């Protein structure tokens, strides 16, 4: 899929661990790991909103389109 999730990069910038973010977003760290590694085919707006809120970023900082 040409849409790539750059969650790991933003997490590294904010120096936030996976467990910490999972707790703030309210999803299981297993599921957050799936998002981080791109093992998902879709993401809900509510999940994206929670991630952006926790990381203090824009959706565009996490999502990237690559041809």
């Amino acid at each position: 899929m040409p849409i790539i999730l750059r969650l790991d990069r933003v997490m590294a910038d904010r120096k936030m661990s996976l467990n910490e973010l999972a707790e703030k977003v309210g999803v299981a760290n297993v599921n957050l790991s799936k998002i981080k590694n791109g093992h998902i085919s879709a993401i809900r707006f509510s999940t994206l909103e929670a991630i952006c809120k926790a990381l203090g970023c824009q959706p565009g900082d996490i999502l990237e389109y690559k041809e």
Partner: protein
Amino acid sequence: MENNKMKNLASTLETIVKVVGSIFFAVSIVCGVMAVLVAIFGEKMFAEGELSLSLGFVKLYATDALEVKTGFMNAYVIVGLVTVMIICVAVYLASKLTRSVLEPIKDGRPFEAQVPKKLKKLAWVVLGCGALIQVAGIVESVLLSYAYSLKEIVNPLYISKVEFDYSVDFSFVLVFAIIMFLSYIFSYGQKLQQESDETL
């Protein structure tokens, strides 16, 4: 999403199907043994025993004077028993397939990958079984018509002509189509379920 009604119904059905499948498997073994016995002792049995002929709701009992071709009679009974045996085995297989369809439904996940696959197999079993029943019915009728001299049984004063009417019932094709259609619906459901599972 909890659906206890579906889970309970699937669980009950699975138990019923398990029992029915076991009964049919036992019947298939009995029929197989009986077919072998008829093949060995059949001709002697039909030559000595009392013979009867069912015509719908009327049962005619033959006297010793009626000539019955025991070879055809023997073949008729063997074909009947072998057909019942094959159908019982098919029902047993169908029960196993139905159980594997019901298993994920029982766990509350009806759109698992195995469900459409097993439904497709079940549809083919229904088609094969239905076709076999029809063919066996025709073969049995032909053998029975050869076994009895029906023209001699009926009174020529009242009956002018004896004709055989073989009819074929194609309703099994409709059942096959419905199960196939269901398998496509479940296959689509499985894709939607996968998409839903991969959405976070």
